[in-house]
């Protein structure tokens, strides 16, 4: 009630909140991150357009005999195809069927962790839903964001989807075996990345021919070693 005159009108009370609407997700993400750190597991949030080659990158990683023990979960709208492909390649994998959700959030990953033992693992990959917009918004508790960008997507994708690329710790430029067939310039892609990533890090490779895969494997090994040394930067 209005306290000044007792007129009976409801009072308007201002309330200062100043809290991120992602605070709930971020709490669970921090919890996931503790799980990963506790087990010395490098957790990656693998993002990119539909069909950019996220699953193929992991298949190529398995073929490279890295010596790293890798497991994965795949965010898939309706199927478990990616998880089955990864299992066939020798990477233990489950799918997180998201239904209509266009991204994974920290809670979904936390739930998946109940089915995936982290003990004895080196790398845990979350293959996010193919989408350059929504997945970028949600922290999953990863140590690093890796964005798979295929050369067939054109040079302007970083400029059109700056949020995703700003948050990338590494961009894997895939399908470079197709460059001879395309009018796409590596320099133009790198220029677009320099306008969206403060510290651009790019590894170009072909999951098909295996060209460049050793640089990706070296990056994985270095990030994993950095974790153990306690020097890896926390994921953004």
């Amino acid at each position, binding site marked *: *009630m209005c306290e000044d005159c007792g007129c009976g009108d*409801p*009072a*308007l*009370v*201002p*309330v*200062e*909140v*100043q*809290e*991120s*609407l*992602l*605070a*709930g*997700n971020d709490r669970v993400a921090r919890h996931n991150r503790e799980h990963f750190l506790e087990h010395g597991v490098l957790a990656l949030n693998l993002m990119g357009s539909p069909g950019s080659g996220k699953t193929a990158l992991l298949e190529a990683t398995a073929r490279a005999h890295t010596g790293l023990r890798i497991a994965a979960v795949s965010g898939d709208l309706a199927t478990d195809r990616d998880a089955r492909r990864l299992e066939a390649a020798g990477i233990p994998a489950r799918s997180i069927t998201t239904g209509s*959700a*266009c*991204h994974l*959030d920290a809670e979904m990953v936390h739930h998946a962790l109940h089915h995936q033992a982290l003990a004895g693992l080196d790398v845990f990959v979350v293959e996010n839903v193919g989408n350059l*917009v*929504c997945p*970028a*918004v*949600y922290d999953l508790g990863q140590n690093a964001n890796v964005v798979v960008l295929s050369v067939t997507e054109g040079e302007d994708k970083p*400029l059109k989807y*700056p*949020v*995703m690329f*700003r948050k990338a710790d590494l961009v894997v430029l895939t399908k470079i075996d197709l460059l001879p067939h395309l009018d796409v310039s590596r320099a133009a892609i790198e*220029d677009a990345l*320099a*306008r*969206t*990533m*403060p*510290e651009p890090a790019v590894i170009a490779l072909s999951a098909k021919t295996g060209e460049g895969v050793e640089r990706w494997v070296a990056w994985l090994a270095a990030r994993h070693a950095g974790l153990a040394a306690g020097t890896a930067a926390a994921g953004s």
Partner: protein
Amino acid sequence: MHEMSIVQALLDRVEAEAEAHAASAVVVVRVAIGTQSGVEPDLVRSAFDLARAGTRCAEAELVIRSVEAVWACVACARPLAAGERLRCPRCGAPARLASGDEILLERLELEVA
């Protein structure tokens, strides 16, 4: 459309404040959304209109403050214009997004009977 998840988090947060203050209704909801947050204000507005039925926000006014992206050099604080290479031309240090990535519930006005 992840804006629906954002709006669900918004409604939950506002409901908790309304409960804590024993409010009969929420009159104004003020949020700030950065242009580099990955969230579209228009989609937030339509998701809000869909999801608020039956909550204390049913009649609330949603005010969205858009926050422009501000990039600045980490070393010398020189601001960089949008679309520039994100390296300071003066000292070579990488730029940081100083603001423009927020998705924030700023304040509410509650009706307390």
